[in-house]
């Protein structure tokens, strides 16, 4: 059964009865390989549609989740259950629980993954004091605002005032790698323990490079919980800074006090252009850098021209995009013209823009610009009747994932192996223009009735 992987969280959604006979068809060897290749931050099995489960079924899945946890150094467990299922699982595994239990799928994205949840308010309650602390710590480490209800009375009184309510949840043994989350368009990596040459293995370089590709420009390493950093750890950070400089990337390190690192290494970090802050709070109060919102840069950005490869994949990109729009919205985009230029639009407002990075057999950035009305139409299958701006962004991101998935499939049939990043969504052309400030690209203009749709392919 294929999991849905989104924002670096993989979730399986089985339904019906779960026992020892069918559990092995829920997470198969092929699914494990797929997950290991993508290395998500979290891997969960949703029990929302499970009517009945027995210990054999849950134990088998827990075993596979533990395997994946070790392979991917991920946060794993079960989610989407009621209190009865929660207690039943805890009763089944009284000795040692190697996995976590998170009451709903939405809550999983608070504990792991790259979904932007920093503006949400959260209340936690557990009658197990140690678990209450574990849950709170896991969220506080991700710099989320958490209220811990001191008792059930306070919890019941206050819960209605919060966006997220964490209860009936259990944090198993977490051996998190470098945890990552996004706040104010800035990617924050939280490091722990001793930072040495092992950071090369635990740091997800592919995620980092892809984030640069889709426009993130500020990367903050929070080392508040780090005991010390040796020369290999410092060199790693310096290399990241130097490598990112050509793309205008700023590397920030917060919480690096003199007792954690030799003075000479601190100087090396500064020489490599790394910005040092006392802690995350002082960093976020520095408007000069945070005000760049992570998508602008004042540094020199390397200019990269489009190449033959980009031109050769353009027909595939057009085919996949137009076909997907037609299937999901019943509208036919009519091609107007193709030009090599910087992204240009007659009108600047009322658009949604998705940006997807492609790498491997072709190195490119795909931007899709759609009129908001058309964007809502292509997303209508994915949207509920009454939706928020956040719902629309999520659905447009899913729509962009369908297109990029189709591009990957078509290119694969032509023996070009390409991988793609998760889409980033914008609703301001001005932000996107800043992002691809200096690069030319191939712009294909379409009309859907009298409205504009643009495919912009660049490097």
């Amino acid at each position: 059964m294929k999991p849905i992987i989104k924002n670096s969280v993989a979730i399986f959604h089985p339904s019906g009865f779960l026992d020892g006979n069918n559990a092995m068809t829920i997470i198969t060897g092929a699914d494990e390989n797929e997950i290991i290749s993508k290395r998500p931050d979290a891997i969960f099995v949703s029990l929302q549609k499970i009517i009945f489960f027995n210990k054999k079924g849950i134990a088998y899945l827990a075993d596979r989740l533990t395997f994946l946890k070790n392979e991917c150094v991920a946060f794993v467990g079960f989610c989407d259950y009621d209190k009865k299922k929660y207690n039943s699982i805890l009763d089944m595994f009284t000795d040692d629980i190697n996995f976590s239990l998170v009451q709903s799928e939405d809550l999983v994205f608070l504990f792991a993954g790259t979904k932007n949840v920093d503006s949400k308010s959260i209340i936690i309650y557990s009658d197990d004091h140690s678990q209450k602390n574990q849950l709170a710590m896991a969220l506080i480490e991700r710099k989320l605002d958490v209220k811990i209800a001191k008792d059930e009375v306070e919890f019941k009184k206050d819960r209605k005032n919060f966006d997220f309510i964490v209860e009936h949840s259990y944090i198993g043994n977490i051996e998190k790698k470098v945890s990552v989350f996004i706040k104010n368009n800035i990617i924050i990596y939280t490091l722990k323990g001793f930072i040495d040459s092992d950071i090369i293995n635990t740091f997800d370089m592919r995620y980092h490079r892809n984030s640069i590709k889709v426009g993130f420009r500020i990367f903050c390493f929070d080392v508040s919980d780090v005991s010390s950093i040796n020369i290999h750890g410092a060199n790693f950070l310096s290399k990241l800074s130097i490598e990112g400089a050509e793309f205008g990337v700023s590397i920030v390190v917060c919480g690096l006090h003199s007792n954690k690192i030799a003075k000479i290494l601190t100087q090396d970090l500064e020489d490599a252009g790394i910005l040092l802050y006392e802690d995350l709070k002082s960093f976020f109060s520095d408007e000069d850098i945070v005000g760049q919102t992570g998508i602008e840069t004042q540094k020199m950005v390397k200019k990269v021209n489009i190449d033959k490869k980009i031109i050769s994949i353009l027909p595939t990109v057009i085919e996949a995009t137009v076909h997907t729009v037609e299937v999901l919205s019943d509208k036919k985009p009519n091609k107007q013209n193709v030009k090599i230029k910087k992204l240009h639009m007659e009108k600047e407002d009322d658009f949604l823009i998705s940006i997807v990075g492609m790498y491997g057999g072709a190195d490119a950035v795909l931007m899709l610009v759609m009129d908001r009305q058309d964007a809502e139409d292509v997303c209508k299958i994915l949207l509920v009747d009454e939706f928020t701006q956040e719902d629309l962004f999520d659905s447009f991101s899913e729509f962009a994932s369908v297109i990029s998935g189709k591009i990957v499939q078509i290119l694969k049939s032509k023996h070009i192996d390409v991988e793609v990043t998760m889409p980033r969504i914008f609703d301001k052309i001005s932000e996107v223009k800043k992002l691809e400030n200096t690069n030319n690209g191939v712009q294909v203009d379409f009309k859907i009735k009298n409205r504009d749709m643009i495919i912009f392919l660049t490097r």
Partner: protein
Amino acid sequence: MLHKYDIDRYLDSIPPIPKTIKSTLLYLDKADMLQAANIAKEDVVFVEYLSDVVNKPIFGFRDEIRNVNQIFGILGLNRAKQMIYSYYMQIILPKKWEVFDFSSKKFQDLQANLMIQWSKILDALAIQNRDLEHSITLIPASLIVCEMLFRDIKDTISLLRDTKEITYDAILYKMSGYRLLDVVEKIAKKWEFKKSTAVFVKSALGSESKREIDIYLRLLLSYEMSKPYIIDSGLNDFFDFSLDFKEKDISKFQSIIDMEI
């Protein structure tokens, strides 16, 4: 995109029930098993289907049976009729499945399992209305309908389902305004199923009905759709109905179908 007219076109393409099969059913309605078997023998495809299904392990016959008279005799009137209705699905069964990793053999397994288990449930609930026995034969049609309707856009739909947890039924509804069971109901009408059969299926699966029989139909489908061969085919979360069951109903269901816990 799928439109209502695509669905209407599909419905138009569904052939009528062959005359021999209709005649067989008429004789069964008159309880004339001998004449029914004699007519049925004329349809070699039906005879092959019949012997394939009844010789599946779930029917529990020790020796292989191939003779139609013998099969009808062993099955009895109601089960023989159920077989005829199940055979209706063969008329629209695709030779090759493209949307799901399914096959004719797996489809027959599903039909046989549903028939046997449903009969056990009706017996356990002491339900006398044997017309309800035939309703189970209609449900697998929804799999075929889904396979045929989504065939041309299967890649896009598959990618869509890779990014969001959404059922085929929900996609069909958002695209065309039809639910899968609406299409199945139209097929039932075309094939002159009793109106009450389609109404029962729609009401049991299309609502959160607390009627005992409806609850057990939903439980049976949930159970059958959780089998490994179904999960492997990509059909596990196919039906989009309420999964809010009481523990006592689940326990009773497990006991009726002898489920290993």
